[in-house]
């Protein structure tokens, strides 16, 4: 309970190294976080960010170096909230609750939760189920809860592991305001993100990791987004720059067509994806974008309206629907087959074609997996590695490879570059372009148009379940798209 002496830094790491077998995951890492500041930690997948967080959390012991810090609170990307319980119950659970006469003292718990949440205008939400809150507010509750649980009452550092990656674009500001409010209390915030725009807008200082080493640590003002990319990558990625194809020149007949589609978010929407084109669909959460991609891929039924695939009506869950490539945005829960290997994740749609005398040919299957792992530059290249040992970007490539392997006529990919590093992103988008050039219709969705817009031939923006913009990408600027979204 002794409050650690408040030093002039919230967190100071000096000469930290961590080795896993032959790999040096962290190599002489030093960084400092000032109290009251927001410090961004960026780097590609595998650069050592997660290892650093795990060392700070005490999950790994460092091999060398030292860390000076007061009490640290962690909030992970998966916020650790229980969606069916109320905000108040979520707030109270996981620590000894206030008790009175052998019962939970909800009155005291209520006061405690209201005190912690009032600053963010969430004090009236404590009776609501967690799942009814927007994701940003859920994140705020998770952070407030972490700070409330301080043993010493004086959290020096708050570590936020990709708190924004699951947020719809319009909610990020909400969380950003909350982060500034937390920082204003004198807490040093370390925040890990893939979105460089947020670093510029939010972080006072940043540290860039590459291959386990610090390649930059200092004021955010000293660099800019191209500078950060260069620091992270070591050289500019090849795919950056002007696209080399001629957009939509080779768009063929429609392959996926939706007519009068209605769901709880779509309002009599008509939509087409043509062979050979990449359509980017953008919209904020609730715009109908998520619903559209599921329905067009034959993974969910519209309440009314019709989807046609290659000219014929597409029934949800039918064998034909299973030919449509689908990369869901919720990769951990709906994309990868956890527990299985990279090989099994890639081959699951192709098993029928690698039978030899009625039996899955182990050799053909391994060749197939190795082929796509190579094509997509999946690392590690070992097809028998369990899928969950791969980084998010490489898992995403395996999910995509599963579909590329059957050469689908249509691919629907939600947030294809989410949580993916610059290299993996370029590779994923290049493969989707190749599929389109091979005659497939490709539909991509994203809440952040700048992520993928330059790879699209046609842009469609949804708002309130209707199309507010549908135009060739070449005629549009980001501003046009963003203003159509809002």
């Amino acid at each position, binding site marked *: 309970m002794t409050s650690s002496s408040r030093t002039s830094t919230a967190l100071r790491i000096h000469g930290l190294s961590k080795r896993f077998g032959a790999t040096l995951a962290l190599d002489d890492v030093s960084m400092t976080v000032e109290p009251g500041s927001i410090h961004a930690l960026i780097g590609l997948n595998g650069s050592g960010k997660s290892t650093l967080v795990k060392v700070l959390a005490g999950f790994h012991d460092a091999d060398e170096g030292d860390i000076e810090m007061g009490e640290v609170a962690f909030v992970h990307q998966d916020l650790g909230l229980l969606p069916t319980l109320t905000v108040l119950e979520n707030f109270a659970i996981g620590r000894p609750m206030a008790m009175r006469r052998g019962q939970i003292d909800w009155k005291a718990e209520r006061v405690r939760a209201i005190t912690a949440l009032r600053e963010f205008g969430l004090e009236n939400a404590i009776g609501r189920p967690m799942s009814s809150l927007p994701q940003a507010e859920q994140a705020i509750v998770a952070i407030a809860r972490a700070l409330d649980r301080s043993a010493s009452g004086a959290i020096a550092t708050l570590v936020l592991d990709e708190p924004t990656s699951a947020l719809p674009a319009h909610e990020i500001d909400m969380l950003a305001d909350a982060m500034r409010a937390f920082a204003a209390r004198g807490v040093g915030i370390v925040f890990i993100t893939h979105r460089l725009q947020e670093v510029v807008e939010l972080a006072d200082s940043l540290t860039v990791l590459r291959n386990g080493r610090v390649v930059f640590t200092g004021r955010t003002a000293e660099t800019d987004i191209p500078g950060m990319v260069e620091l992270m990558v070591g050289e500019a990625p090849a795919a950056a720059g002007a696209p080399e194809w001629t957009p939509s020149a080779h768009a063929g007949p429609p392959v996926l067509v939706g007519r009068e589609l209605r769901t709880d978010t779509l309002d009599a929407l008509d939509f087409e994806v043509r062979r050979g084109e990449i359509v980017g669909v953008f919209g904020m959460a609730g715009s109908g974008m998520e619903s559209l991609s599921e329905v067009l891929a034959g993974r969910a039924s519209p309440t009314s309206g019709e989807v046609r695939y290659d000219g014929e009506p597409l029934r949800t869950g039918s064998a034909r629907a299973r030919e449509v490539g689908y990369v869901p945005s919720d990769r951990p829960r709906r994309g990868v*087959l956890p527990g299985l290997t990279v090989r099994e994740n890639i081959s699951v749609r192709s098993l029928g074609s690698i039978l030899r005398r009625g039996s*899955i040919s182990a050799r053909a299957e391994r*060749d197939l997996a190795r*082929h796509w792992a190579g094509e997509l530059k999946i690392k590690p290249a070992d097809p028998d590695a*369990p899928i969950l*040992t791969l980084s998010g970007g490489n898992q995403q490539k395996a999910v995509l490879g599963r579909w590329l392997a059957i050469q689908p006529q249509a691919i629907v990919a939600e947030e294809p570059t989410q949580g993916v590093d610059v290299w993996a992103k370029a590779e994923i988008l290049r493969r989707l372009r190749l599929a389109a050039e091979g005659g497939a219709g490709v539909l991509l969705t994203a809440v952040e148009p700048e992520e993928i817009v330059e790879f699209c031939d046609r842009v469609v923006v949804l708002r309130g379940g209707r199309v507010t913009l549908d135009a060739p990408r070449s005629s549009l600027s980001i501003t046009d798209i963003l203003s159509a979204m809002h």
Partner: protein
Amino acid sequence: MTDIQNVPSTSPAPAARPPADRSALLTTLPRFGMVGLLLLIVVVFSVLRPDTFPSAVNLRTVLVESAVLTILALAVMIPLIANDFDLSVAAVLGLASILAAGLPGLQGLPVPLVIVAVLLVGFLFGVLHALLIVRFELPSVVVTLGTSTLIGGIVLWYTDGAVLYSGIPASLTDLGRGSLLGVPLPVLYMAIVAAVLWFVLDRRPWGRYLYAVGSSQASARLAGVDTARVRSVALITCSTLAALAGLILTMRIGSGNPSISSAYFLPAFAGAFLSLAAFKLGFFNPLGVVLSVYLLAIGVNGLTLLGAPSWVEPVFNGVALIVAVGLARLSVGRSRKLFGSA
């Protein structure tokens, strides 16, 4: 690296290498830990009881007595792969055993019809389970607990609580007491069931789909696996195999005992869960089930020959189950759930 084409899925990839063999010892050894344990047990008991334990008669006894249980454990394993529990397998076995004795003995049905009818009853219970669990999305534990209790009631009504042993034709019991090329028939049936299941689960797309559903039902569905169909087939196969086990039981012992199912319930699940610790670590697998059931049976047999009292058997089984699953957890690591609901 630079070759960029949409190559058809079936075209061979460049130069297939042999699987990586680094640290093969570490990854391969635990897979066969239970085989080693089995050998150890055999050696120890052979030394301690050289006259009785390693004899052909004793071997034959152990093999035959556990054949029915092995089939039942294999049945239970199938839906477990997809995270569905079928708690009714022992009850179905009991009902099938009763019907196999009663249909010829009381109703006078000819033997071929008895076999078909018994298997059909199992099949129909499987269809009922699939309907309730997959179609109406009811929890498998609750549904099969319900049907299990219901079947218990049917058995009581049909038998009045009495053992059925009269009027069972020899042509039926011959199918359980005979042997082919020196192999007792129940063992042969079990071997066929295990081999077919191994082939289907390890070498056919359906098996892979079943493991994919067990890994994540949502991901499997979105990846284009017909999850409803895969789970339904698993549940139906399970009940049908349970009925087959009951049929073989009656063929072998020549009677139908209304209270026999309770002796099979826990050992069947123990055998299925133990398979997590053999061959395909962390996954239910048919060869692991066969090994597990026989490991337990041989252990108990040896202890009995040493003169251990009867309470030793459940204690041995329980400890072996927990130790083995614990070892599976150690070798699989924390990166993965051992099975869906854990």
